[in-house]
């Protein structure tokens, strides 16, 4: 068994469509400085750094090297990890392992992306097999649309069900000053009416059937930094540290054509492993809040089934019953989630940071349950349907 570890600080930049005022290094620095201030630490207190982004997106390799001054890595141990969409959660897991091993006391995890400097679709296509897959692949949008097609076929889900997820995420984002999309026009309109407006809108362009503009995450510039600390140090840094209760990840296949589209098996298995380790028997009842990497609307229906919050095919019911809204039994993505901000290399780390804020009771206008959050569940998601999970808690884990 390793050491117990907690999150003691979180910093993020404002997520925006284009941050032309800063370069990548400066963007990273914004998040790092904010996280250090949050934990009332200086860079001298940090023992090691883990950093990641989608390293082919901006057309720049060796981010660990060229960002050293902005990240604070000068003359410190630094490791880059890059696992696609899950990069942010993998960075978090890696930082956690650094501390849990007993080798480091305080480790900084950094995720960032400047999508405005990249061709996201072109770059994502190069992540797939050049001979078997690239000729036909339509980037992330098409890669998610195919999954939606299967979910709709299997369970009779409709465009309205997908839109209901989008409405939840965008309404929640209105509480989050850091979120990229702030659709102010939605304010004060009931969710069902918003669904009608979105589904009926002629401006809501079809991207890849059944996904329309409203069903997708945006392309965002942004960075995030999370500070992990060991037991004995963590309690001195944060009044309420967010303890890591369990973490797990699963991968499956190389080729998209091998993936089981009926279920998100990696998220399912990683969730099971985390629940087993943390002794969670009834996830819907025991988990207080989720920050899920939901890059498109229908994921908000299907993947909550895979996690085990409800039975297969029941995702839409949870949505429409308001179970996952801010005041529901299991609020999902009070931050507005990925569908409101998607700086890809930062995205999954923001899920972890936001989950930590909820546990710490410091999430401001997006805080759920009056700050009384005992367990918060965060996920990362990667392109061939792989998954990372991190479960955070207020009580020190057994």
């Amino acid at each position, binding site marked *: 068994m390793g050491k117990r570890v907690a999150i003691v600080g979180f910093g993020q930049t404002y997520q925006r469509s284009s941050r032309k005022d800063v370069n990548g290094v400066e963007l990273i620095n914004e998040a790092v400085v904010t996280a250090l201030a949050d934990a009332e630490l200086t860079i001298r207190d940090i023992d090691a750094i883990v950093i990641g982004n989608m390293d082919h997106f901006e057309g720049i390799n060796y981010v660990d090297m060229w960002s050293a001054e902005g990240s604070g890595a000068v003359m410190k141990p630094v490791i880059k990890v890059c696992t696609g969409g899950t990069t942010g959660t993998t960075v978090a897991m890696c930082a956690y392992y650094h501390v849990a091993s007993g080798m480091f006391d305080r480790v900084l995890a950094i995720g960032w992306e400047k999508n405005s400097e990249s061709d996201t679709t072109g770059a994502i296509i190069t992540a797939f097999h050049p*001979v078997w897959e690239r000729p036909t692949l339509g980037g992330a949008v098409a890669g998610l649309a195919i999954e939606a097609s299967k979910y709709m076929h299997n369970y009779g889900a409709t465009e309205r069900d997908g839109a209901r997820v989008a409405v939840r995420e965008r309404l929640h984002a209105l509480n989050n000053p850091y979120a990229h999309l702030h659709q102010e026009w939605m304010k004060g309109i009931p969710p069902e009416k918003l669904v009608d407006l979105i589904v009926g809108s002629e401006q809501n362009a079809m991207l890849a059937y059944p996904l329309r503009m409203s069903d997708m995450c945006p392309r965002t510039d942004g960075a995030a930094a999370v500070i992990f600390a060991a037991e004995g140090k963590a309690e001195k840094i944060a009044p309420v540290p967010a303890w890591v209760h369990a973490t797990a990840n699963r991968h499956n296949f190389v080729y998209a054509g091998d993936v089981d589209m009926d279920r998100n098996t990696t998220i399912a298995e990683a969730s099971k492993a985390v629940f087993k380790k943390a002794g969670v028997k009834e996830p819907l009842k025991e988990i207080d809040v989720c920050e899920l990497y939901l890059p498109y609307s229908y994921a908000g229906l299907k993947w909550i089934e895979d996690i085990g919050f409800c039975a297969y095919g029941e995702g839409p019911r949870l949505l429409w019953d308001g179970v996952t809204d801010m005041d529901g039994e299991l609020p999902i993505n009070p931050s507005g989630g990925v569908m409101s901000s998607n700086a890809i290399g930062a995205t999954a780390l923001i899920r972890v940071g936001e989950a930590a804020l909820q546990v710490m009771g410091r999430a401001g206008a997006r805080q759920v349950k009056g700050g009384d959050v005992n367990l918060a569940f965060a996920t990362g998601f990667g392109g061939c349907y792989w998954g990372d999970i991190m479960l955070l808690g207020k009580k020190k884990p057994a």
Partner: protein
Amino acid sequence: MSSGEASQPFNWSVGKHGSYFLQQLRDKRKIVGIKCPGCQRVYVPPRPVCGHCFKGLTLDDIIPVSDEGTVYVCTIVQFGFVDPSTGIQRPVPYTWAFVKLDGADTCLTHFLDSTDPEKVKVGARVKAVFEEKRTGNLMDIKHFAVL
């Protein structure tokens, strides 16, 4: 940046198993898969390792599969983007479908000949249409025709 006129200095090996698959496409208009003697899964395209069993698969494990199959998942891509392999805008709309060929357990990812939402559906039956002049490339299958 644009790479429309540029050539790409990449050469990718598809290995022995992938080469055999492409040779069969080019020379015989046949599609082959590989059957794992452990779990009996049939993979298309063939590959040298069964990920489930972590068992090595030899060319002797290659078996023919049908050139007909079922659409497992699909979408109609409508947004325009530059194809990173060619530097040219991919013509849209097009249908991207995962075809589970009869006799296979995994899907081949390819185009369909139609963008009619009434025909492009999970469960639709499809058949491979081969190019007249074939060069040993996955695109020797021009597309799958909706039956």
